[in-house]
């Protein structure tokens, strides 16, 4: 039930109905494409139909003659407009190769969808029509899509100035790794595919750029997760003073990592607005976005587990080959590295050996997609744990329980410290909810009966590192920015409060969650808390929303800013009541003096601080506080998920029967919002496991080029999830909170595919590649059965 009470008191932990909803439910939302400026023109990008082709000639003249066309430019025309390449902020090694990435290609097109020209016209339709008139002579070159093939001798070179297609090799190894692997009595080795995925935020990307020459002032409205990061990097890319650029993320319709980037069109729109002296709008069409917006995953994974005969896990060795696509996008190179520390999963191991090779291919660049590196890690370790259980003829539950990390804080073999967790508690609760024993009995019966539909039970226990991140660690890892975030609380004299936050929501409900924190800490009626975000002119400090960081970093910054408000209010109140601050007690922003009826609130203090008639000597008037919080550790959620499904052994069709998720995410501010995050994350993970795959043909054409051929799951494909939580509050921050935005997507692909393999294990099936479509399941059955 939604809570609508208005009294001051405990708001943290309550299922408050969202403040964001009213405008979104009534059509009063404002997404970028809803915005219009006087004199605005529309841009259309001409894109290469070839995955790899030399650009011999680009002629925009025919487009210029088309009705309504205002201007058209080739990449060469704009060559002088750029001060730097489009950025990659995480060059993961000192020798990572970062090729030049211009917003419009000039020499070669390096993926189907690479922009080669741009046309501007009075209307959307005129721009689109005219873009088709631009003449481009291409000399097609051989494509290479698979990252392993791109590493092979003689593979087509994506960037000719580089000697091969390798961008980097990143490694992390403990000294004992070789010894442990050579001495372990049991070693299992598995190889998995993380298919390419298309994020599919339902709002396509879009930008609107304005330049006011008289003030030399730029404004960019963008469907982005990262207005602050965007401002910084666009200033660098364009070579303009950062102070002259304002970036606004208005209502943003989902991101999932795909709007965590500095895209060509964002840079282009600003430059074109400057050249034309008119505002420029560009809105992506969905099938255009399938080519031009970053993809996710695209990894080959090899994982080896070293263990004793009794199932004691001793070491994990991982080799990844990851497709970067044609260029390094903002965090593309680092995305697989975000998983690099957690291939040991929730288990206590002594040896670790990880290596990842990033590879250029003639495909759309990959970058962060919900979970970014950690779904891949969880998938590999959890699939491999099931393989080890089969090898040792152990129940997968028993194997996991035997190896769980149980004491915290725990420094794991890869070197990071998990601050808290409860893996046993989560797994026990999940098994209880799902009735594991009962399901195993049903499975045995159906196996014995030769049922045409076989039952599969799949587990995934996980831990992940999110809440990016301690700035010092990011520095050591060569990440080009910090990991802090910031919040400002401004108490207005009439009692209401403005909150400015550096995170930038696009569906997560920050306005509600952050209102709850302020209402709880300061006793301000929740409807009098106004949360402002997503505009670099109202909140200059911020590092935006990605990697499940908004509550664990931004929320904690807000909590600590509230502490400062309480602290100053206390001094104001003590002065006013003529008592010592030590005699004041405070709860939810209300100050009392023991043994008296004297009482004042933060709201009272705000008025006194504003009038400044009677403040302590030397006190600055006004009641406002900012806190910039740099987290001392990552955030470490964990949990146990169980998928239960039926596989039709005749057709290979899968029917999901149940899905239980028990997560350990520390303290919860709004359980309804948290449940929603888990629902959405698990749905995306089920999508990866069963339905979704970006497929290229040999020429490098994206054959799943629209929502017709790329299967985003609908309501009909999904089921109701059963959720619960255990709690091991994070000792890292005063709220005890952890991130939750990605946990569902991290745990669910492993749980679902483990269930598919479990259903078919009796037929000798040990692997079904994602997505487990009926044909693929059926083939696995034929091949497994033939063994």
């Amino acid at each position, binding site marked *: 039930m*939604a809570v609508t009470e208005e009294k001051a008191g405990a708001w943290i932990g309550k299922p408050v*109905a*969202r403040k*964001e*909803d*009213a*405008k*979104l*439910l*009534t*059509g*009063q*939302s*404002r*997404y970028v*494409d*809803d915005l219009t400026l006087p004199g605005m023109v529309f841009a259309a990008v001409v894109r290469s139909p070839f995955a790899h082709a030399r650009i011999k000639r680009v002629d925009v003249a025919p487009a210029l003659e088309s009705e309504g066309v205002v201007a058209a430019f080739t990449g060469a025309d704009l060559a002088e407009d750029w001060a730097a390449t489009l950025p990659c902020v995480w060059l993961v090694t000192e020798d990572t190769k970062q090729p030049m990435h211009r917003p419009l290609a000039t020499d070669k097109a390096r993926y189907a969808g690479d922009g080669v020209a741009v046309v501007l016209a009075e209307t*959307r*339709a005129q721009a689109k029509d005219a873009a088709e008139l631009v003449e481009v002579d291409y000399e097609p070159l051989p494509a290479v899509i698979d990252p392993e093939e791109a590493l092979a001798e003689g593979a087509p070179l994506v960037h000719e100035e580089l000697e091969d297609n390798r961008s980097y090799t990143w490694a992390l190894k403990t000294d004992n790794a070789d010894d442990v692997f050579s001495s372990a009595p049991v070693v299992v080795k598995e190889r998995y595919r993380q298919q390419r995925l298309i994020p*599919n*935020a*339902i*709002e*396509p990307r879009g930008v609107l750029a304005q330049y006011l020459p008289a003030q030399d002032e730029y404004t960019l409205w963008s469907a982005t997760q990262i207005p602050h990061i965007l401002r910084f990097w666009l200033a660098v890319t364009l070579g303009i003073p950062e102070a002259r650029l304002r970036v606004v993320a208005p*209502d*943003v*319709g*989902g991101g*999932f990592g795909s709007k965590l980037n500095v895209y060509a069109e964002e840079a282009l729109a600003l430059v074109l607005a400057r050249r034309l002296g008119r505002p420029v709008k560009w*809105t992506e*069409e*969905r*099938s255009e976005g399938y080519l031009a917006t970053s993809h996710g995953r695209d990894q080959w994974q090899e994982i080896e587990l070293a263990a004793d005969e009794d199932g004691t896990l001793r070491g994990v060795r991982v080799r990844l080959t990851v497709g970067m696509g044609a260029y390094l996008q903002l965090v593309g190179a680092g995305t697989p590295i975000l998983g690099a520390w957690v291939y040991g999963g929730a288990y206590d191991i002594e040896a670790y050996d990880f290596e990842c090779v990033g590879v250029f291919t003639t495909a759309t660049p990959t970058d962060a997609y919900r979970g970014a590196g950690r779904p891949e890690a969880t998938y590999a370790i959890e699939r491999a744990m099931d393989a080890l259980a089969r090898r040792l003829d152990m129940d997968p539950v028993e194997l996991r329980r035997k190896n769980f990390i149980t004491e915290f804080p725990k420094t794991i073999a890869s070197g990071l410290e998990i601050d808290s967790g409860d893996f046993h508690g989560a797994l026990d609760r999940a098994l209880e909810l799902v009735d594991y024993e009962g399901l195993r009995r049903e499975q045995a019966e159906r196996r014995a009966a030769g049922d045409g539909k076989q039952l599969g039970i799949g587990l995934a226990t996980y831990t992940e590192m999110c809440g990016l991140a301690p700035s010092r660690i990011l520095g050591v890892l060569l990440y080009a920015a910090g990991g802090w975030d910031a919040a400002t609380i401004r108490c207005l004299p009439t009692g209401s409060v403005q909150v400015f936050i550096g995170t930038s929501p*696009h*569906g*997560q*409900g920050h306005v509600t969650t952050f209102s709850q924190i302020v209402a709880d800490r300061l006793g301000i009626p929740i409807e009098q808390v106004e949360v402002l975000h997503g505009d670099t002119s109202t909140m200059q400090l911020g590092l935006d929303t990605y990697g499940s960081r908004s509550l664990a970093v931004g929320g904690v910054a807000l909590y600590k800013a509230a502490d400062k408000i309480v602290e100053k209010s206390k001094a104001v109140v003590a002065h006013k009541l003529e008592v010592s601050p030590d005699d004041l007690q405070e709860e939810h922003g209300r100050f009392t003096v023991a043994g008296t009826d004297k009482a004042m609130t933060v709201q009272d203090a705000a008025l006194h601080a504003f009038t400044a008639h009677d403040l302590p000597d030397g006190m600055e008037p006004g009641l406002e506080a900012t806190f910039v919080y740099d987290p001392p550790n990552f955030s470490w959620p964990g949990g146990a998920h169980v998928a239960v499904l039926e596989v039709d052994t005749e057709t290979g069709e899968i029917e999901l029967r149940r899905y239980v998720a028990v997560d350990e995410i520390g303290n919860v501010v709004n359980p*309804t*919002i948290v*449940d*929603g995050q888990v*629902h*959405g994350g*698990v*749905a*995306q993970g089920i999508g990866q496991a069963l339905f979704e795959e970006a497929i290229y043909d040999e020429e490098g054409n994206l054959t799943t080029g*629209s*929502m*017709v051929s790329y299967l*985003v799951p*609908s*309501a*009909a494909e*999904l089921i*109701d*999830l059963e959720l619960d939580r255990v709690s091991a509050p994070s000792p890292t921050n005063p709220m005890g909170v952890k991130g939750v935005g990605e946990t569902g997507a991290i745990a669910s692909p492993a749980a679902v595919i483990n269930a598919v393999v479990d259903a078919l294990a009796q037929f000798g099936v040990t692997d079904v590649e994602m997505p487990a479509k009926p044909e693929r399941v059926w083939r696995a059955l034929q091949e497994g059965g033939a063994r």
Partner: protein
Amino acid sequence: MRRIAVTVNGERHEAEVEPRDLLVYFLREGLGLTGTVVGCDTSSCGSCTVLVDGESVKSCTVLAVQADGREVTTIEGLATNGRLHPVQQAFHEAHALQCGFCTPGMVLASVSLLAENPSPSDEEIRHALEGNLCRCTGYQNIVKAVKAASAA
């Protein structure tokens, strides 16, 4: 150009439109009703769903001229006298929206479903909403909201 007369949210509008103009752009750019949004170019996602003569249609697959003489309801016209429609209210109470982009289409498709089938089962709701994609919620709370609205 062709002259059309369309009643949108109870208000009659006359306009000159190109024969190729889609209803969704007539609503968004012609009338400024930006609550109806465009999520794809293959009529797959349902974000642009509106009601035409009470039935849900994807306004990206309908020409503006086809709406001539008909009644269109968009998300802006669903609440009456400042009170949310029961489906809107149920979406709010069940947390059936996150980013909100698919929400107008999802709400209108649900209104249409309930007009045809006032007390659908969960299964019927899931199948009826198959043409409306949401990437945030996993649909669980959407199904819950429609169910709640059907009982309201």
